[in-house]
C-alpha cells in the first residue's frame, strides 16, 4: 500500500535521515520526499513523505519508531493502489459453494469490490466470471491459494488472471 505522511522534525542535522531510516528498515520503499524549510515552527521543519509498505504491520512498526525518535506525525493518508482479481470457473458449482467462494475471498481482507457474472447455460455446468478490485498483490496471492484449494476440493476448473 502507498502511504503519504506529514511529519515534523527537529531542525537539526541528521533528523531527515533519522525519519527515513525506519521506512527502509521495515521493507518500505520511499517514493517521494518534500522538504519544506519555510514551514519552521518552534524549531521544527515539515516534511511530506510518500512511501510504499507491504503491510499494516510494517506501517505500525514505522510509526512506533518515529514516535520513539521524537518525530511528530501530523497527518497520515493511505493512498491505495488497486489490483485486479479475476477468475473464470467452470463446473457443477452449487449456490452454497459459490457463496463459500465469495465469502472466502471477502474474508481475506483488502477487497474493495467483488462481482460475479454467470453465463446462461442449458447444462448443469456453471460458468462464472468472478472479478474484483483488491488493495495489494498479496491479496491476489492469498486469493489464488484459496481458489486453488476450493477448485481441488469441489472439482471445478479454475482459470485465474495474470495479475500475480
Amino acid at each position, binding site marked *: 500500500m502507498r502511504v503519504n505522511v506529514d511529519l515534523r522534525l527537529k531542525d537539526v542535522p541528521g533528523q531527515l535521515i533519522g525519519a527515513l531510516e525506519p521506512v527502509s528498515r521495515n521493507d518500505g520503499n520511499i517514493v517521494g520526499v518534500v522538504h519544506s524549510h519555510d514551514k519552521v515552527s518552534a524549531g521544527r521543519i515539515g516534511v511530506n513523505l510518500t512511501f510504499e509498505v507491504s503491510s499494516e504491520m510494517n506501517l505500525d512498526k514505522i510509526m512506533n519508531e518515529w514516535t520513539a525518535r521524537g518525530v511528530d506525525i501530523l497527518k497520515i493518508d493511505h493512498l491505495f493502489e488497486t489490483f485486479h482479481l*479475476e*477468475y*473464470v470457473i*467452470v*463446473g457443477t458449482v452449487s449456490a452454497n459453494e459459490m457463496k463459500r467462494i465469495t465469502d472466502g475471498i471477502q474474508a481475506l481482507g483488502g477487497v474493495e469490490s467483488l462481482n460475479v*457474472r454467470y*453465463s446462461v*447455460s442449458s447444462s448443469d*455446468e456453471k*460458468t*462464472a*466470471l468472478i*472479478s474484483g478490485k483488491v488493495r495489494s498483490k498479496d491479496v491476489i496471492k492469498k486469493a489464488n491459494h484459496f481458489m486453488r484449494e476450493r477448485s481441488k476440493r469441489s472439482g471445478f*476448473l*479454475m*482459470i*485465474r*488472471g*495474470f495479475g500475480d
Partner: protein
Amino acid sequence: MIKMDAVLVGFGTVGQGVAEAIQMKDQLFVDRFGEGIRIVAAFDSNTYAASKKGLNPTELVRTKVGKGNIGKKRPETIPEMLSRLDYDVLVEMTPTNIVDAKPGIDHIKAALNAGRDVVTSNKGPLALKFREISKLAAKNKCNLRFEASVGGATPVINLASELLRCERISSIRGIMNGTCNYILSRMESEGLPWEPALREAQQLGYAETDPSYDIDGIDTACKVAILANAIMGNDVTVHDVERTGIRGVNLEAVTLAAQDKKVIRLIGEITEKGVEVAPRLIPRGHPLSISGTLNTFHIQTDLAGEIIVAGRGAGRHETASAVMSDLWVIMRTKEPNSHSS
C-alpha cells in the same frame, strides 16, 4: 578445416527435415568451416544406412519415403552401434517418451559415453533426466544442445542461456503448444464449441488422434521442465510441474473472458515460486494473447526488462532450423580461435 560427421537417429518428420536442411545449407557451412556436415549414418526404428564418406541426404529421404525404411536391418542395438561407430555428433530425433525416456535416453548416453557431442529435439530425456545427462556431458567434455526441444524454430533456449547471460531472469512465461492455442483461438474468433475446434485442429494435422498429450498440458509441462532446468538452473522433471490442461474450457468461459477484454491461453510458467502449466486469463493486446499456432515466450529480466520472442513451434523445416543452429554452434566451438566469432 573443421569436419562434422553426424549420425541421425530417428528419421521421421524432424529427421528428414534435418537431412534436407543439411543439404540445403551445405555451402554456408563449407564457406565458413571449409567443410559441410556429413551424415555418416542414419537410423529409423528398424533399419539403418551408413557410409564413412557420407550419405546423400536427398537419397536418404527419397528411400525412406519410397520404401518406408532407410536401409538394412541393424546387426546390433542402436546404443551398441553408437558406441562403435566413428562420428562427431549424434542428432537424436526419436519420439518423446515421458514414461522412461527410452529409446532416446539410451542413444544420448551411448553417444556421450563415447565422447561424442549430442544435439536433440527429443523432450523425453530432457524432461525426465536432465541432470543425469547434462552431468554426463560435462564429465566427458561433450556439447549437449537441445534448442529444438522447446518452441520448435523459436530460439528461446539459446537466447536465454547465451545471449541473456548477464541477466537475472525472474520468470519465463509462454505459449508453448500450438495445438492448444489454435483450439482456444478458434473458440474465441469463430464461437466454435470445444469439440468442433479440436476436430478442426486434428483435420489440419495440428493435433494427434489422441490429443491428450497436447490438451492435458503434458507437452507444455515437458517444455516448462526443460526451460526450468536449462535456464533457471532448477532440478525438476515433468512430474514436478503443476499441471491443468484446457479440457474443461468451454465456450461460455471464452465468452465471459471476452466480455472482460481477456482471452484464455494455456500458459507454461517458470518463476521463482515454481513451475506450472494452466489456462490463464490474458488481457487482450498482451504479447501472450496471440492467436493461432505460433509459440511465444515472455522473459522477465533485471537489466533488459521484458524480452519477447515468437516463432513456429513445430514443423519439418522449422524444427530442423533449431537443430541446424545447434550444429553450427558446435562447429564454432571446434574452431581454433572459437572465442573470436
